[in-house]
């Protein structure tokens, strides 16, 4: 078994604000991330796939197909967009990096078998860095 990891980048803005809490409670909970007009990050996304190496091609999977899936499902809808206002999944859900990881994993997993049918590689996990100082992982 081999695990291959590909790194992608996108820039997006967000605001952390829970609708059920008061303004004071939101400020206490989210700090600067609650500032009313939002702010942005350069996110780094790692997507790992795992499987058997094909004896002839020496590859675990089609990297171009992975790139296309991530571009269509994550980079195009998220990059240079406001997550709260432009990504329907975050209209009601707070776009913390935890929720962002769950949303990205769900987008990739939902279309995985269409892109990698049969013996293709499995989705092994994703990792998101919101800044250089924090990292969130969701492992399959």
């Amino acid at each position, binding site marked *: 078994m*081999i695990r*291959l990891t590909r*790194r992608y980048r996108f820039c997006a803005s967000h605001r952390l604000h829970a609708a059920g809490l008061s303004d004071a409670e939101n400020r206490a909970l989210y700090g600067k991330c609650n500032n009313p007009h939002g702010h942005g990050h350069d996110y780094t996304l790692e997507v790992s796939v795992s499987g058997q*190496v094909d004896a002839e091609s*020496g*590859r675990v999977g089609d990297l171009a197909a992975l790139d296309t899936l991530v571009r269509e499902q994550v980079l195009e809808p998220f990059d240079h967009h406001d997550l709260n206002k432009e990504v329907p999944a975050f209209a009601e859900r707070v776009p913390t990096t935890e929720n962002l990881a769950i949303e990205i994993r769900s987008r990739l997993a939902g279309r995985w078998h269409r892109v990698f049918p049969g013996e293709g590689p499995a989705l092994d996990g994703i990792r998101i860095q919101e800044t250089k100082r924090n990292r969130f992982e969701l492992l399959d």
Partner: protein
Amino acid sequence: MLITRRADFSASHVCRLERLSDEANRALYGADSNPHGHGHNYVIEVTLEGDPEPETGMVFDLKRLKDVLHREVVEPMDHRFLNLEVPPFNTVVPTTENLAIEVWRRIEPHLAGPRVRLHGVRVYETEDLYVDYFGGQP
């Protein structure tokens, strides 16, 4: 406990299957199939798993690990064209996957001991693409 040592080397390679046409190779490997090859600054991370020896406080002598990496991997591969100069890549396509497996095969026999074993090999082809191999059926 896991301990990891990093090393790097620069090499050229080309990924193509001779039985396929240029178009089919391009569809399979993209720009990696360009016939005259291209290069990367490869980074390898080698991770050992073991318990510190009570007297020395070390899992493994890192100088020895550095020497093994240099002798088995860096020296034979640095500034070489992998397909032409580094077996088995005259017959095995030097993808990042196969490179990780080959690094494991070269170093593993030199790193086994009563309290230590090779845990994993990570090969970065670029900052944005890396492969992990943990031994066993690849």
